[in-house]
């Protein structure tokens, strides 16, 4: 149970005990218990009862907090608290109504009414005044609001309820009867306690939360509140003594009004200050979080990182940097970057920081055609020097960052030793592989040529004597030798793909296809046409010619008829260009569409269709080298729908024709130079 709630309960208990005491006074006829000053103002029985109701309601509302485990008891005690508060509210309202209308309603239910009547007849005062009624009403309303969860309304009500008791108390202390009227000092004190108790009930929200909080704003608020409440009291008493108990009501009104005004003002400013304080706190917290995040990122980064000042001296370094340079942190401090990474200064001076690089590198500049200038590269391969003098191949990049000490530079240094090692061995094995394929096909061809020569010699020497089966075997022998020669030739070409790199340019598709048509499709059995509006491809001419030639030869070689038609068209996308080659041949079954690009793969026996199975492998390798792709797709030429439709409706063999919809190859070229 929180302290504030305990306080509220203690106040409510005190109220209950004192009220019960005054009620005992009525029962036992002891006047002093309900009228503390002889011939003074008394606590009316109804006032005592409503106060008792409020006090018990406070206690009941605290039950759920005190014993959170009993859930049934909660709703019951809460309902009882609401009932009591509502009854008190009702009594206070009816009393007000009586006052306003001048009728008498409550006499019937007022206990000890006879005693009260007698006292009134004796000229003594005993009534529940309008002030008391309003105070009780506000108290009851505050409790109701609290029970329904409206903490702000509850606080407002409780705050309002404090007005009359405080004013009356001021009246008593200054000796101004106008100020307390019919409110007895006991009632004043008890309602005051009740109000404070109600305020403390909602101590965890709104103004009370701020005032009772633990922050510096709360402390300032508490001090101000105590000062503004006590100052008028003391001044009042001071004036009282000086003026020998002749205080004008105006002075007292000003004092009370000032007090009330300052309490309201303080509460309001506390609220605003608290909000401001909260914002400040969360921003400071965020700052701390980002600061520690940056520290962590920096320290635990897997890449050696140095923070450099304006003169490129090391301000701080992370764990990886210590490891890389084999130098403890405090020794790295203040070292010049050039002694760690020779040319580091020049690198930072001459190259763009990494984020600018990302912007400038987003697209390939077609006009300048030259994006390989070093000044734009933000990453550079340099050599770092460890303490022992060991040279370490590294890749460095730099980023400017703004700090409290001005502009500094973050230098990331990644160790490339392992990468370089792998790169070297990869390069070596690639070279060896190329060399192997080249030499193998060369050396394999020498004996093959010898066989060719010898066969020819024998043929020539035998002349007409070569007949029958022998002649047939000779021709088979020559055929196989020729096939072997072709295989080796294609293997050689495959190994050569990518040996010479040339820069891509925007090629005119008609131009390239015309050249290929004249060279490779001289007899007009196979026709080829370029369709569509886009007729440009961004590719290197030798590469595109190689790929196009192999696709065309593939279509011709595997066509089921003696004549055919090949359509070529281009579909540009955002950063790629797709070139389609569609033939009207037998097509490729979906399950083989990946396989056809493997080396030495043919879908038919070589005796049936003479081929090495290298053509499409060559296309795939070549496309891969330029950062593009090649695949067999299900796509008909969008520019020849009419002829497609015609062929479908073309009589009896339409079934066969739709089944043999042909093969469409899709070449996807990137519109930029591959990295």
């Amino acid at each position, binding site marked *: 149970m929180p302290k504030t709630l305990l306080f509220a309960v203690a106040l409510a208990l005190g109220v209950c005990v004192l009220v019960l005491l005054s009620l005992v006074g009525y029962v036992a006829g002891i006047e002093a218990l309900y009228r503390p000053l002889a011939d003074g103002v008394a606590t009316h029985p109804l006032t005592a009862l409503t106060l008792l109701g409020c006090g018990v309601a406070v206690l009941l509302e605290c039950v759920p907090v005190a014993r959170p485990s009993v859930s049934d008891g909660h709703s019951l005690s809460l309902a009882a608290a609401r009932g009591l508060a509502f009854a008190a509210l009702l009594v206070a309202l009816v009393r007000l109504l009586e006052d306003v209308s001048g009728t008498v309603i409550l006499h019937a239910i007022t206990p000890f009414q006879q005693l009260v009547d007698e006292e009134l007849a004796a000229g003594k005062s005993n009534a529940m005044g309008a002030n008391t009624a309003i105070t009780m009403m506000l108290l009851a309303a505050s409790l109701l609001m609290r029970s329904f969860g409206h903490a702000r309304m509850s606080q407002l009500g409780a705050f309002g309820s404090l007005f009359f008791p405080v004013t009356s108390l001021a009246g008593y202390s200054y000796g101004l009867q106008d100020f307390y009227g019919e409110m007895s000092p006991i009632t004043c004190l008890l309602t005051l306690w009740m109000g404070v108790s109600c305020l403390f009930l909602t101590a965890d929200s709104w103004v009370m939360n701020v005032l009772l909080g633990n922050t510096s704003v709360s402390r300032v608020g508490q001090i101000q509140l105590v000062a503004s409440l006590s100052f008028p009291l003391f001044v009042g008493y001071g004036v009282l003594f000086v003026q020998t108990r002749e205080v004008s009501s105006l002075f007292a009104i000003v004092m009370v009004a000032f007090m009330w005004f300052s309490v309201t003002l303080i509460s309001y400013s506390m609220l605003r200050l608290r909000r401001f304080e909260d914002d400040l706190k969360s921003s400071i917290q965020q700052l701390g979080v980002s600061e520690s995040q940056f520290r962590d990122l920096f320290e635990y980064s897997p890449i050696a990182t140095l923070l450099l000042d304006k003169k490129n001296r090391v301000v701080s370094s992370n764990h990886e940097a210590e490891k890389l340079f084999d130098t403890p942190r405090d020794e790295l401090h203040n070292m010049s970057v050039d002694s760690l990474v020779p040319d580091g200064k020049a690198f930072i001076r001459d190259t763009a920081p990494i984020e600018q690089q990302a912007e400038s590198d987003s697209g390939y500049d077609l006009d300048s055609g030259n994006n390989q200038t070093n000044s734009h590269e933000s990453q550079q391969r340099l050599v770092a020097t460890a303490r022992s003098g060991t040279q370490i191949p590294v890749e460095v990049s730099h980023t400017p960052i703004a700090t409290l000490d001005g502009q500094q530079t973050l230098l990331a240094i990644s160790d490339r030793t392992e990468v370089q090692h792998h790169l070297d061995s990869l390069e070596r094995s690639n070279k060896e592989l190329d060399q192997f394929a080249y030499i193998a096909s060369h050396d394999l061809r*020498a004996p093959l*040529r*010898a066989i060719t020569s010898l066969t*020819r*010699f024998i043929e020539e020497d035998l002349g007409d004597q070569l007949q029958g089966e022998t002649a047939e075997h000779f021709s088979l022998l020559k055929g196989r030798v020729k096939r072997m020669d072709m295989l080796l030739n294609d293997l050689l070409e495959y190994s050569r793909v990518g040996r010479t790199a040339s820069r891509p340019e925007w090629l005119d598709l008609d131009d390239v296809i015309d050249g290929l048509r004249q060279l490779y499709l001289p007899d007009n059995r196979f026709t080829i046409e370029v369709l569509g509006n886009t007729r440009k491809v961004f590719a290197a001419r030798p590469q595109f010619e190689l790929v196009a030639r192999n696709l065309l030869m593939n279509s011709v070689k595997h066509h089921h008829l003696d004549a055919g038609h090949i359509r070529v068209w281009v579909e540009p996308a955002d950063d790629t260009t797709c070139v389609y080659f569609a033939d009207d041949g037998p097509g490729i079954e979906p399950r083989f569409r990946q396989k056809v690009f493997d080396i030495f793969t043919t879908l038919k026996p070589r005796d049936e269709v003479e081929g090495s199975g290298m053509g499409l492998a060559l296309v795939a390798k070549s496309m891969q080298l330029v950062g593009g792709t090649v695949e067999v797709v299900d796509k008909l030429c969008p520019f020849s729908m009419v002829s497609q439709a015609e062929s479908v409706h073309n009589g009896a063999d339409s079934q066969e024709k739709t089944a043999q919809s042909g093969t469409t190859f899709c070449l996807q070229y990137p519109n930029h130079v591959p990295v």
Partner: protein
Amino acid sequence: MMAVRQMETRSSPAILLVDDDDIDRLAVRRCLRKVALENSLIEARDGVEALEHLQADEGVWPALILLDINMPRMNGLEFLQALRENVALKRAPVFVLSTSDNACDMAAAYDQMIAGYLLKQDVLSDDSRLAELVSSYTSNVAWPDKPDA
């Protein structure tokens, strides 16, 4: 009389074939047999052997050299370099006769002032092409004197 003798030697220069492949040499010999030049053919199996032939006391001169590139001991390009550096032999006309269509090989050979680069797969694919070329060359070209060493 002296002049006539000289004319005679000029009309039938030696043909020095430098190749390590027996069957290629056989093919060349068969070619030359067709144009009756077989008798002027001298064979060497690598650059070292070829230099020995050229530098012998009764050295072969004038000579048309048919030179392979890929050979053991001293390959064609090394032989060419040695030949061009040799004061006595540097004028000899050389045809490279190789299977290598490597651009680097070709460039290196032409840098050494060869008369021509012949691909075996072209000129040896039938008997007549190399035979015609050699016979036409030897009968039409005027030969240089051997410089004094």
